[in-house]
């Protein structure tokens, strides 16, 4: 069951990415936008997407929301996707992350080790530019607010879904 955190369970938001690879910084940008706006008790994390760190970040959480940039073909830069992975759903969501050893491996490893959060929701934004440098492309920068709002909706519930 997905949605707002279960009573007693913590919720975490994890922004994955590297702000020195332009649109790869979308996840951290969303987390920055959420500072001071999330319900009490919600943890905000930044991550390079390395699987063991992701697993540690969502350890014991009833809800984990991961925000990341993706390469898509064909790409519509700035397009947002929301994916929900249930506890018993191996392979339900293996997004084409910009990190080769990353979210899909983290999910696989967490499933093998029974370390999945109660619910895992992924918000991904299609990237335009993953070259070296700082600053988001205009198309991605324009949707950071919308992505942050979508994450807040998940944290406050009660409208889970695919």
């Amino acid at each position, binding site marked *: 069951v997905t949605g707002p955190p279960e009573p007693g369970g913590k919720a975490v938001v994890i922004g994955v990415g*590297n*702000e*020195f*690879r332009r649109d*790869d910084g979308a996840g951290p940008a969303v987390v920055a936008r959420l500072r001071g706006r999330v319900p009490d008790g919600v943890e905000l994390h*930044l*991550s*390079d997407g*390395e*699987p*063991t*760190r992701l*697993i*540690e970040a969502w350890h014991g959480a009833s809800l984990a929301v991961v925000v990341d940039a993706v390469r898509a073909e064909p790409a519509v830069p700035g397009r947002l996707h929301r994916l929900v992975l249930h506890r018993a759903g191996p392979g339900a969501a293996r997004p084409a992350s*910009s*990190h*080769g*050893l*990353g979210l899909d*491996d983290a999910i*696989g*490893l967490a499933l*093998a*080790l029974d370390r999945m959060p109660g619910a895992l929701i992924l918000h991904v934004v299609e990237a335009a530019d*993953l070259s*070296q*440098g700082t600053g988001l492309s205009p198309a991605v920068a324009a949707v950071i607010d919308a992505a942050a709002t979508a994450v807040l909706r998940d944290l406050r519930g009660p409208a889970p879904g695919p």
Partner: protein
Amino acid sequence: MTHQRDRTLFTSGLARVEGEGAMYVRVSGGLVDEVQLNIYEPPRFFEAFLRGRSYTEPPDITARVCGICPIAYQTSACQAIEDACGARVAGGIADLRRLLYCGEWIGSHALHIYMLHAPDFLGYPGAVEMAADHRAVVERGLALRRAGNAIMELLGGRAIHPVNVRVGGFYRAPSAAELAPLARQLRDALPLALETVRWAAGFDFPDFTCPHELLALTEPGRYPIERGTLVSSGGLAFTAAEFEQHIAEEHVPHSTALHARLTGTGRSGDGRYLTGPLARYTLNSGSLPPQAAQAAAEAGLGTSCRNPFRSIVVRAVEVVCAIEEALRLIEEYRPPAAPAVPVIPRAGTGHGVSEAPRGVLYHRYELDDDGIIRSARIVPPTSQNQRAIEDDLRRFVAARLDFDDARLTSACEQAIRNYDPCISCATHFLDLRIDRR
């Protein structure tokens, strides 16, 4: 596909390597005539990005080069700038710097051993598949990584891109009481690290020797981690300030990364050399702390190790070493009077070296009177090792031309992973290509 005299292989996506790049092997007339490790390397971007910035900024900026070894970048950067400004870090601040670096060694090595390298020896395509059959083993790796991350979070402020490191030391030094829980976690981790050595030593290792000159830091009386002077197996000895007199970098057409070579001497005659765990161990095995030394002896490592496949055992020994050192540093810790020494900018050039988990990491900064960076140079371990890796691949493939394409590709990937190459340190897009003609 076996026994072809001319072959071309191409595989997209070399897994379990930190970074971005490609591997190309061409076999013509039954001989390996071309091996290229193509690397797209971010340090060059950061060198340009640093120009015009303040002397206080490199620790924070260069920590972003690599998510796996930010402390290495911060430490080499700090030491280079302190060198340029004539500042000297010693005592408790220097101890904290070494302690923080131990955390990075533990975390980085545990990741490579358990998540990236061990699946090769146990016959799994990756850590996820290995975890399904060896859950307790993978949990042991995660516990070790957690211990390393705990050091980085406490001293660095956070495990990702630490924020507590500054030129001259730290923004805040912990109290002895704050370190006590860390010591308990490290004491719990030590038997796991020792078990890791025994476990890795039991793997089957191909018979393979790398003949290259070895380059590592060395320090009197202790295993080199965060500082030292450079020595080579060929008898070279030089300081960080002399690095560029002995190491030349040159462009090669197939890679955006520069290839490094030892000038003047070199066992191979063409300046090829290797840095990293094999070099560190072979040049410093006599300086290991007691439990690491005993574990190495029981694992049959001897005083030197030149088989890159056995680097997994050396890394495991170095995890023991880092935990022992961390425990010693915590036990002897006395909080410094100030968390950092003053670093007053002045015009000049400074050099810094440290032993990143993958090998020697060199930084050089040129400052003006106001402490503005006029030029920066970063030489990461993977670019230094590129020529040695390519040469090892050439010999490794030549002895296995009877393998079919899939098996040969897999063997090449494993041979590359021996070096834990951090090819881009930022994101991870990697292709492998083998041509057989």
